[in-house]
């Protein structure tokens, strides 16, 4: 039975690759990238082998980071491939213990798990100077690997129950996203105080060595330095943790097979919401629908959170250098990013786009509605982001330039995105899916399209950039006023053309767009 489940997992993996050549290509590129990282880090470990003092705590630290990474990232953020979740086997009447064993083993068959195994083995080369310690190191590396994947599986089962509730899913991602993007500033703050960090890290690894995170990783150092009492303790703890985890996991799997999926509490909205405010025209309706999605769909919420988060990140980032001129770029940056964010709109609609095709809404109305929604949402924060940094730092001569650049960038980005989304679709997270989960095999093509889109926006921005930069350098307010004029004029023209050309493209390609979104479901 266990063998069947393993075979099933392998088959699923293989079939996943077969689905589309793009996907396979993406996985290969991603895999090569990850492999490169593994090799680089392994080399770093290889060359640290002669640093006898450091290798003990480095080993524990690296082991702990790997286990912690597996414990946090898949269950909480990216989501795990749940094709083999225990609930699916309910109807087969497989004995819980056998099923658990099969599923646990199947959890080790995945591309990330394989790469992690290579990584832990490669990292063991830090013990290469002492052959016996190297053998112990390799064995313990496997222990760390098993611990990481078992912990991941256990937390996944625990998290699944919670994630089934939509509200929780949407909330948790928001919190995690905030944590993730504030990670940068935190790290830079820490990096500036590197000295004291080491003082903090080394005692921390001593503690980690007694936890499931670092117990296995602590053993090789005990062996190499001949501290056999500590070795016994760490090894015993590690084995106890592993056994306990296995037991818990078996139990949780068994329990999951008899627990029905959690019922959802239906959420509701009173009345018509945005549909009441916007004009009763097709484009107005599209705008109302898009606005509703900006607030209700976590995939859009990601972009919405960006707006308040960017200033905070910039503030922290410039705080470390003491040079706040970066803040002056906030307006243009928010303009470009938010304008660009509607370029995946049709992909986000997924097959719900059929309603637009079937009602025969014109491409122009479709484009215009989506632009209006984004515009209504962004315009006020955009103006604030453009005006506030200059006025707060007492450089009022900058205001017109910043404002012109921000508005120009926003309008041009909206125009270009209107054409892009009528022409190209990407594989994006499905409606209701975890917004952080990018479908695999997407990388190369998306990167290429987005690069091209940004390139075109850059070229179209040149007329606005010239007076803007001139004004910045010469501190000329007049150049600022020219920036406003040029930005507004070129921006409006581009937006007008974008909606027109995008609308025409969409009219001509509605069924093709429909087929493109049908593929991704």
């Amino acid at each position, binding site marked *: 039975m266990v063998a069947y489940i393993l075979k099933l997992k392998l088959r699923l993996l293989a079939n996943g690759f077969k689905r589309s050549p793009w996907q396979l290509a993406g996985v290969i590129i991603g895999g090569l990238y990850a492999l490169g990282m593994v090799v680089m880090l392994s080399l770093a470990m290889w060359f640290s082998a002669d640093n006898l003092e450091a290798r003990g705590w480095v080993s524990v630290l690296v082991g702990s980071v790997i286990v912690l990474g597996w414990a946090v990232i898949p269950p909480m953020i990216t989501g795990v491939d749940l094709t083999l979740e225990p609930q699916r086997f309910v109807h087969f009447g497989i004995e819980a213990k056998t099923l658990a064993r099969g599923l646990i083993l199947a959890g080790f068959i995945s591309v990330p798990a394989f790469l992690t195994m290579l990584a832990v083995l490669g990292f063991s080369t830090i013990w290469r100077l002492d052959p016996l310690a190297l053998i112990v190191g390799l064995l313990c590396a496997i222990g760390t690997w098993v611990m990481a994947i078992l912990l991941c599986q256990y937390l996944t089962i625990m998290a699944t129950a919670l994630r089934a509730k*939509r509200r929780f899913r949407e909330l948790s991602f928001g919190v995690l996203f905030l944590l993730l993007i504030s990670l940068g500033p935190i790290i830079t703050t820490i990096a500036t105080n590197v000295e004291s960090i080491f003082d903090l890290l080394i005692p921390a690894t001593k503690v980690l060595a007694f936890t499931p995170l670092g117990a296995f990783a602590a053993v090789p150092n005990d062996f190499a330095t001949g501290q056999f009492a500590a070795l016994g303790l760490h090894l015993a703890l590690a084995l106890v943790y592993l056994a306990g985890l296995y037991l818990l996991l078996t139990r949780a799997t068994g329990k999951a097979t008899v627990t029905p999926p959690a019922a*959802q509490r*239906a*959420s*509701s*909205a*009173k*009345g*018509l*919401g945005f*549909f009441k405010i916007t004009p*009763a*025209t*097709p484009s*107005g*309706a*599209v705008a*109302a*629908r898009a606005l*509703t*999605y900006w607030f*209700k*769909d976590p995939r859009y919420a990601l972009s919405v959170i960006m707006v308040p988060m960017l200033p905070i990140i910039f503030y922290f980032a410039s705080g470390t250098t003491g040079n706040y001129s970066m803040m002056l770029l906030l307006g243009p940056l928010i303009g470009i990013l938010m304008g660009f964010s509607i370029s995946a709109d049709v992909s986000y*609609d*997924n*097959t*719900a786009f*059929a*309603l*637009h*095709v*079937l*009602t*025969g*809404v*014109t491409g122009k109305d479709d484009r215009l509605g989506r632009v209006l929604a984004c515009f209504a949402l962004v315009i006020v924060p955009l103006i604030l982001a453009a005006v506030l940094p200059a006025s707060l730092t007492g450089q009022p001569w900058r205001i017109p330039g910043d404002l012109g650049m921000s508005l120009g960038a926003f309008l041009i980005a909206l125009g270009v995105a209107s054409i892009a989304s009528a022409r190209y679709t990407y594989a994006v997270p499905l*409606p*209701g899916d975890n917004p952080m989960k990018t479908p695999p095999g997407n990388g190369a093509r998306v990167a290429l399209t987005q690069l091209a889109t940004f390139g075109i926006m850059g070229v179209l921005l040149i007329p606005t950039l010239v007076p803007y930069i001139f004004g910045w350098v010469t501190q000329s307010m007049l150049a600022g006023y020219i920036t406003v004029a040029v930005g507004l004029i070129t921006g409006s023209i581009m937006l007008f053309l974008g909606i027109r050309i995008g609308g025409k493209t969409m*009219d001509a390609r*509605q*069924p*093709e767009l*429909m*087929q493109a979104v*049908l593929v991704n*479901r």
Partner: protein
Amino acid sequence: MNSMALEIRNLAKQFGDKVAVNNVSLQVPAKSFYGLVGPNGAGKTTMLSMATGLLRPDQGSALVNGVDIWAEPHTAKRTLGVLADGVRQFDRLTGRQLVTYAGLLRGMDREEVTTRTEDLLRVMDLSADGDKLVVDYSAGMTKKISLATAMIHSPKLLVLDEPFEAVDPVSAANIRDILNDYVAFGGTVIVSSHVMDLVQRMCSHVAVIDGGVLKASGTVDEVRDGMSLEDRFVDLVGGRGTSEGLSWLRTS
């Protein structure tokens, strides 16, 4: 007025090596209640997608109330209401918002949309759930709300792909009443289904499609030729196994 509500001319579509629809021509007279039947994978959905503007055909054309949907899509779609199978809805909207959205997209004015939305929610038995998000609806409720979005602009032709799938018997009976009234007052309905009994009772005309080929079409009485529609269908499509099926599937 055009005497043919839908005229399909030599529609064909090929996916890779597989011919999904092979040169099908079909005429659906106005004011008929037309059933489209066929086994799973026969090409029903592909054909209806091509006839409603969702999928571009390799060849052929489809005339909706006399207007070629591929030559003048915006005009043709004005008199056409479609319930597509296997597509999502904008399910972050509430039921009421979704139906309103469909009406406004059609360019109808707000008062008209509001009245019709409430009427549709009432007859679909969804008034109490109008403020719930569609994502929280059951499969049957989603079918009904999608049907409402297809009807709000009072089209002359309704094309419904599997409208009764997952719909409870009471709602199904209500929907049938609505559709019968609609036909009685001059509308035309095309439904695809594999429930023969339903088609025989409900429809005036029927077409049988199998393997992408039209096997028979006409009034129900013509097609079934004295037999029950189900027997006739099996006759046309074939593929019934002999009695020596699963000899081991015996409990005693």
